């Protein structure tokens, strides 16, 4: 077929072509574009929450309790008269914070374990991978729940618990990458020059493993929000009055039939933001898919 001719062509074109191509693919996948805008909107919401929110998200205002959505309160108010709209907007900050910390913590643990296992192989690999398997033997949410029950309730502990669940995925990926890099001839060459294992690991293997790991971490951001919101919904996550989205949905549960707005709006935001991350992730996957890069 024809595809081979393009490979010849791309050889002469500069690397900019590749970026242009990426941008083209991104533009072509409308869904990825929508996703990007949602995610940007989400981050903007978190950063500018104090400017965007009309009310204090925490201060109670009892005379205004359980008001239906109106011009004053776009999404209505809860049983303490707190403005749901403001709480949802401030909630974005909590979610961003969760995503950020979980990504960093699970990324670091996962890469450390995965790269070590992949690079050294043998017994070290065997032990580390069995430990990973132990964590993978649980359904994720159940492990996260058990861990956060163990650590005690609260946002920080929930973040730790989610990270302790998330790292396994990263570890497996990092291991596979490290094994791939390790078998490259230039690593042998560097070793032959007399570089220590540690040096090779840190300066040569690790950097090569990072980009797929980063991509994977991005792809998982939607899942992280869902897990965090699930914990919050069960009361194992952020503590009141923290406006974590899952916790707000849970708050509204006993008012669902009469005051539907308390649960509905924060849930909608979870859905939309996760959708944004997933669309973006899908786009990234497509863009990086070598089969589509032609």
């Amino acid at each position, binding site marked *: 077929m024809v595809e081979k001719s393009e490979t010849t062509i791309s050889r002469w074109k500069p690397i900019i072509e590749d970026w242009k191509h990426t941008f083209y693919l991104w533009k072509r996948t409308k*869904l990825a574009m929508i996703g990007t805008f949602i995610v940007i909107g989400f981050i903007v919401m978190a950063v500018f929450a104090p400017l965007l929110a009309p009310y204090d998200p925490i201060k109670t205002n009892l005379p205004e309790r359980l008001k239906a959505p109106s011009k004053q309160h776009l999404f209505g108010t809860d049983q303490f008269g707190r403005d749901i709209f403001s709480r949802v907007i401030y909630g974005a900050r909590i979610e961003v914070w969760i995503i950020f910390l979980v990504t960093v913590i699970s990324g670091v643990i996962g890469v450390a374990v995965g790269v070590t296992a992949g690079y050294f192989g043998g017994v070290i690999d065997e032990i580390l991978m*069995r*430990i990973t*398997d*132990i*964590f993978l*033997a*649980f*359904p*994720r*949410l*159940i*492990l996260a*729940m*058990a*861990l956060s*029950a*163990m*650590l*005690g309730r609260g946002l920080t502990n929930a973040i730790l618990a989610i990270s302790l669940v998330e790292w396994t995925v990263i570890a497996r990926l990092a291991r596979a990458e490290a094994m791939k890099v390790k078998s490259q001839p230039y690593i042998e060459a560097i070793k032959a020059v007399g570089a220590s294992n540690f040096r090779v690991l840190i300066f040569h293997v690790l950097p090569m493993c990072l980009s797929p790991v980063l991509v994977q971490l991005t792809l998982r951001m*939607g899942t992280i929000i*869902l897990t965090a*919101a*699930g914990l919050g*919904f*069960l*009361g*194992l996550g952020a503590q009141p009055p923290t406006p974590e989205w*899952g916790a707000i*949905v*849970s708050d509204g*549960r006993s008012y*669902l*039939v009469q005051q*539907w707005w308390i*649960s*509905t709006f924060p*849930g*909608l935001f*979870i*859905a*939309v933001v*996760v*959708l944004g*991350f*997933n*669309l973006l992730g*899908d786009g990234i996957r497509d863009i990086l898919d070598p*089969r589509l890069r032609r």
Partner: protein
Amino acid sequence: MKLGSFIIRRLFLMLLVLFGVSVLVFVIAKVIPADPVGAILGGNAPIDLVEDMKRRLGLDKPLMNQFIDYMSGILRGDLGTSLKSNRPVAKDIANFFPATLELSICATFLSVVIGIFLGILSAVYRNKFIDHFARVFSILGVSMPVFWTGLLLLLLFYFRLGWLPGTGRLGLFVTPPTRYTGLYLLDSLLSLNFEAFKDALAHLVLPSIVLGYSAAASIARITRSSMLDVLRQDFIRTAKAKGIGKRLVIYRHALRNALIPVVTIIGLTFGGLLEGAVLTETIFGWPGLGRYIVNSLLLLDYPAIMGGTLFVAVIYSLVNLIVDIIYAALDPRMRI
């Protein structure tokens, strides 16, 4: 023969991992900040009574001894006694698991049918309307928090429209069928209790949809990409060149190959349903294992937490093992 040794190796690894799992579960239970005895005795009990109770439960023994007790208990099938229900955890699990199993089976069935169907359509009509629709459907499915969709569906179909029953497995005044398997659908058919069958089915609709939707979404996604992968293969071109018609090309030549990774996902999904069941069961008041685990976690009923999570981990690992075996059996290439 090769398949046999493969299974044995996997089984051995699974046992190793399960040992690690029970250690982890034990550690989690021991680090839990709750005072299990206080849980049994309630808020009014004075501290002396609490201390006495601890001695009687052997909770003052060194951790190592407690661990040995716990492990030997597991081997005997004794998961301890729940602090909250005051009954053997194993009995509780036996009681609640069928509900979860029934829900999971229904949800899996729903998700497999919808997921594979949409996945195929979407791959075959790539970039057509149906594909876009299926992709949006899928991405929505994995994006929506189940606890939220569950609440909204309950609000709409139960509270507002009254079309479907609300929480639980059976209506308040429907006599539960005689217990053979614990699966109400099956039991009610076996005992010719059609009223119960109808009612149990009606109760299954919403939770199965909620639970099955996200699973259907991921199955559709995998089916699509697997199908696209396969459709790109040389042997598909061969099949087309044979002139056997589009339907056979897709359903005989492509699907069989495409389903191999899908089987893995279905297995994982089934395992994942146990996870989704935690939230779904909480919302739909479903008396299953998920809610049991949530409740025991919320009450910090540590023997129940240990037993419940351990059981789930075993099931999950078993499902994974079975998936691997099916995978090996389905793909002749794996058998070398």
